[in-house]
């Protein structure tokens, strides 16, 4: 694909002005890094506030067509459209709440990970806000449209700008521009006015830090971005640091740490399986999950601390202490916070306990590693009471 074929975002010009190095990612020209560099961008986000353009992702709204005057009933109708495709409890969301969930195939394999939210406003019940991954958005949206039939309409919002503001200063920075954002706690969202335009502001992210994800109409996106950048606590951060931040936070990357061959139980994401729906037996892959949870699990996603040598990257073999191959690294790199290499990968359950001594093979050389609990760097979310 030549550069001319790449899609841009409403913020591409702003990135060029900031000196970004743009790379092709999921069909978009996206900033890999700015002149400060990945390492400093990473540490800046952990210490202050980093601003990311994630407009390549797939935000959308799903609206129930035949609404009644009963908000609860409208919400239940919207939930009934998406729940068969995913493993989470959407019906049970409170107004304003967001939930991390997984789109599954019939075997219980993960087709995507996504976030679904229920609007705060009583007038908007019967609508769901969804954000799916960039590389999977076409197939995800097609599956949702098919499932919705004539019951609900999907409206894509990936022509807007999606920004993430992440880091310990994010709350204060955003409150200075959008005072209403201070009322949000982790995994809640609301519509907030900015100069007469509606922004969708979520207290969520992909770094392990407190922060926000903000969906803005294209016409105000650059103005809003520049307002944030004008705060001296804010620096623009590229996809390079986004990856190292999420790795430290132990968060899986779709297509790397999780894919359609992996179940939520194997991926250590069983928390995303709705208890209500497991009881009701209406989850795709229910029999597989029951078997895995009853002792049939063959592999589990773990964190690995690499104790010596080079970073172990995606594809590197994991061996037991005796040198027998037991799994593979699914993502790995250098942790700027810990100043050491870290990785995630799959190993048999018997070798998945924190403290287990393993090895990773980098360019033919075995290096000592140890299973550690995820996340590598503690999450600092602003949770509600």
């Amino acid at each position, binding site marked *: 694909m030549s550069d001319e074929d790449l899609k841009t975002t409403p913020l591409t010009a702003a990135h060029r002005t900031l000196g970004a190095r743009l790379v092709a990612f999921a069909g978009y020209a996206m900033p890999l890094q700015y002149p400060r560099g*990945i*390492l400093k961008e990473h540490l800046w986000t952990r210490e202050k506030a980093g601003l990311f353009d994630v407009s390549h992702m797939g935000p959308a709204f799903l609206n129930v067509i035949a609404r009644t005057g009963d908000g609860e009933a409208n919400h239940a109708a919207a939930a009934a459209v998406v729940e068969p495709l995913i493993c989470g409890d959407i019906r049970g969301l409170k107004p304003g709440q967001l939930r991390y969930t997984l789109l599954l195939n019939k075997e219980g394999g993960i087709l995507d990970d996504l976030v679904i939210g229920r609007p705060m406003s009583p007038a908007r019940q019967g609508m769901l806000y969804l954000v799916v991954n960039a590389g999977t958005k076409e197939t995800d949206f097609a599956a949702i449209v098919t499932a919705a039939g004539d019951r609900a309409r999907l409206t894509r919002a990936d022509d807007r700008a999606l920004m993430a503001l992440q880091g310990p200063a994010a709350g204060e920075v955003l409150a200075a521009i959008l005072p209403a954002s201070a009322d949000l706690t982790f995994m809640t969202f609301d519509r907030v006015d900015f100069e007469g335009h509606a922004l969708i502001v979520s207290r969520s992210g992909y770094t392990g830090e407190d922060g926000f994800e903000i969906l803005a109409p294209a016409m105000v996106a650059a103005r809003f971005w520049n307002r944030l950048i004008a705060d001296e606590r804010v620096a623009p951060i590229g996809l*390079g640091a986004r990856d190292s931040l999420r790795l430290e936070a132990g968060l899986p990357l779709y297509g790397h740490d999780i894919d359609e061959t992996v179940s939520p139980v194997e991926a250590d994401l069983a928390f995303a399986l709705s208890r209500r729906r497991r009881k009701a037996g209406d989850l795709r892959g229910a029999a597989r999950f029951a078997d895995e949870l009853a002792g049939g699990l063959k592999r589990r996603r773990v964190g690995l601390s690499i104790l010596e*040598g*080079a*970073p172990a990257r995606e594809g590197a073999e994991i061996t037991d202490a005796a040198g027998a191959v037991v799994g593979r690294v699914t993502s790995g*790199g*250098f942790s*700027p916070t810990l100043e050491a290499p870290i990785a995630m990968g799959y190993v048999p359950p018997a070798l998945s306990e924190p403290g287990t001594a393993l090895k990773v093979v980098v*360019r033919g050389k075995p290096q000592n590693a140890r299973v550690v609990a995820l996340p590598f760097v503690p999450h600092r979310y602003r949770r509600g009471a």
Partner: protein
Amino acid sequence: MRFSKDHEWVDLTGDTAAVGITAYAAEQLGDVVFVELPAAGKAVKAGEALAVVESVKAASDVFAPVSGEVVEANGALTDNPETVNDQPEAAGWFVKIKLADPAEMDALMDRGAYEAYLATL
């Protein structure tokens, strides 16, 4: 100092050359976090993999710009890989190679030619 199209530099003293990566290469790689160097005594051929340099993002091969025997590796890079970014064309040298064929130096660019080459990238 001479330069390769793969962005290595070679600084010849007598029959032994210090080899490293150029400031341009270091800038492109970003923050170096790990360097894997060959052991002294290893025979290397021009154009073949000589070392591996790891940034936060990825691992990249460094190619031998000249053939010969590695007589010394820069052990200081093990503890301070960031030296590659800070002083790429000085303290950030990778190895010293005893040249097998000094005529190979003629195939490399001088600084003017290398800078002209960079301008085309």
